[in-house]
């Protein structure tokens, strides 16, 4: 009968030539599999957005503070043109804990000029600022004007409720099922809920969500976050932001994929 090879781990030289050949073949196939899998899994990733989160650098911004109802800083970018920068806290929290110290000194911050140093987040015309240190929120002497809201129309919109911090730069992708739990955590922690929509021409619009009285609606929207949804409410425009005033009863999860899943967002 054939002398079968028998490998014993602690006996040097017991690895026979036929066994070695099999091991070599197995190793080559495993390496081939590793390369094929790396190529497939890397190349099938959908394109990421060119959103930015300046994690390692800070920027000082001076503007007029207002809560509408979410903390923002109104900054003049050109004559009669203003940008409202959404203020956020560290991690998955709102900016409020970082404003408490200042609020203890000045109870009414609306309309006051502030200089805040933080990390910028920006994408598709929207800018957000992460505050990580309450000492870097400085009250200026001047006062400024807060933006005016103008009601536009009653509208029915389809899209996905996202947390703007991740969507506009911190995470990629910052929307959809993979990101849903994180968006829930962020909105639960005080990050303003935003409806992201994309129309057939691939134009995206963003709506800050509030209740019918214009108050924060974070807790009520949590079950719907990160899923294609349809909602009806009154749309207002506040300079560079839309606001959707919403009765939560008029919000439903829809079965078909939202346009925000198109590849170009």
């Amino acid at each position, binding site marked *: 009968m054939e002398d*079968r*090879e*028998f*490998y*014993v*781990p*602690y*006996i*040097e030289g017991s*690895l026979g030539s*036929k*066994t070695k050949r*099999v*091991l070599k073949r*197995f*190793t080559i196939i*495993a*390496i081939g*599999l*590793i*390369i*094929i*899998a*790396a*190529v*497939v*899994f*890397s*190349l*099938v*990733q*959908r*394109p*990421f*957005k*060119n959103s930015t*989160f300046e994690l390692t650098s800070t920027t000082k911004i001076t503007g007029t503070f207002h809560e509408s109802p979410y903390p923002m800083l109104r900054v003049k970018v050109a004559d009669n043109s203003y940008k409202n920068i959404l203020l956020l806290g*560290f*991690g*998955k*929290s709102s900016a409020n804990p970082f404003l408490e110290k200042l609020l203890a000194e000045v109870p009414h911050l609306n309309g006051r000029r502030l200089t805040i140093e933080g990390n910028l987040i920006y994408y598709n015309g929207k800018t957000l600022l992460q505050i990580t240190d309450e000492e870097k929120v400085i009250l200026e002497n001047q006062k400024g004007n807060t933006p005016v809201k103008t009601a536009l129309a009653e509208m029915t919109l389809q899209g996905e409720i996202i947390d703007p911090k991740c969507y506009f730069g911190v*995470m*990629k*992708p910052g929307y*959809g*099922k*993979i990101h*849903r*739990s*994180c968006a*829930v*955590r*962020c909105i*639960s*922690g*005080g990050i303003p809920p935003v409806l992201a929509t994309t129309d057939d021409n691939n134009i995206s619009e963003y709506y800050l969500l509030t209740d019918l009285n214009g108050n924060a609606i974070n807790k009520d929207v949590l*079950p719907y976050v*990160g*899923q294609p949804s349809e909602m009806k409410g009154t749309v207002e425009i506040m300079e560079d932001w839309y606001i959707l005033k919403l009765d939560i009863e008029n919000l439903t999860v829809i079965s078909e994929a939202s346009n925000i*899943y198109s590849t170009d967002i």
Partner: protein
Amino acid sequence: MALDYKLVIWNSFKKQYDKLIVAGMLLYIIVFAVLTFVFNSETSVETLIIRAFGSLAIIMLHIVLVIGPLSRLNEKFLPILYNRRHLGVSMFLAAFIHGGFSMFQFHALGDVNPIYSVFTSNMDYNSLSNFPFQVLGFLALLILFAMAATSHDFFLSNLSAKVWKRLHMMVYLAYALIIAHVFLGAFQQEASLFSVSLMALGFITISSLHLRAAFKERKIDRAKTIVEEGWLEVCSIDDIEEDRAKIFTVNKERVAIFKYDGKLSAIHNVCKHQGGPLGEGKIIDGCVTCPWHGYQYLPHNGQSPPPFTEKVATYQLKLKNDIVYINPEALAEGTEVKPVDI
């Protein structure tokens, strides 16, 4: 075999094996990262780490899972089985990096405990498409952790081989959880024909290899034996190779009958170390040597040679007209039985 516990008992084979594991892991991460940066440069480092290590862990798990059936189908694969635990622990590390980064990214720095968040941030447990897939990955990671943490002979000995084996068989549950984690998670948002096909191919490969190995072993269990006055006729003396064994199932236990030095002896087929098939081993220096890790037993009493203390059950044999008969009643582990002279 060793009398005391060391973290790793190194030999040149293990070193070479581990170098290949590290090289393979680096190769995967580098190819994945370079291709992502070249073709999808807007990625974030965190996403790259989560995706690269998650997919690497899945590939490694597939390799881990094919080694067992391949070794049962062809003994030349046994050296890969020998150091499989290092591959398993490395796979856990890749999965841990994926899971750890994901937990931090998606659940930490929030208003509740991150682990509580994993289970409660998405409560659509009654929906398939919206199912909280991260829970599945978390449970799989717990199983892989328990396996990696006990991947040492210290635990094997202290938990008992039976408990240890049951714990490590949970890798199949982890595999099922991981498949569900991927199909209900990443593939819900970024499905591609290529990636889904690759996962399906992996599942088919693992399943078919396990089925083939199971059919091969079923033949042993279903082999007919003839009863004669309480003795079972098992085979002809010529059916057994010199210094090797044939495996038979008697009283629902697998028994290995060894032929060596003009003698025959029968012992229980299951090695006390990790349950390796002693009947696929060889007589070396007068001892039955397990094909998995080289544990040894004396064929006439089932005892490991001193100073080792492992013992397996022994069986009585008789030879009549070159036909081998076995008494199906197992004797107590380590019982001396006079070998049958051929």
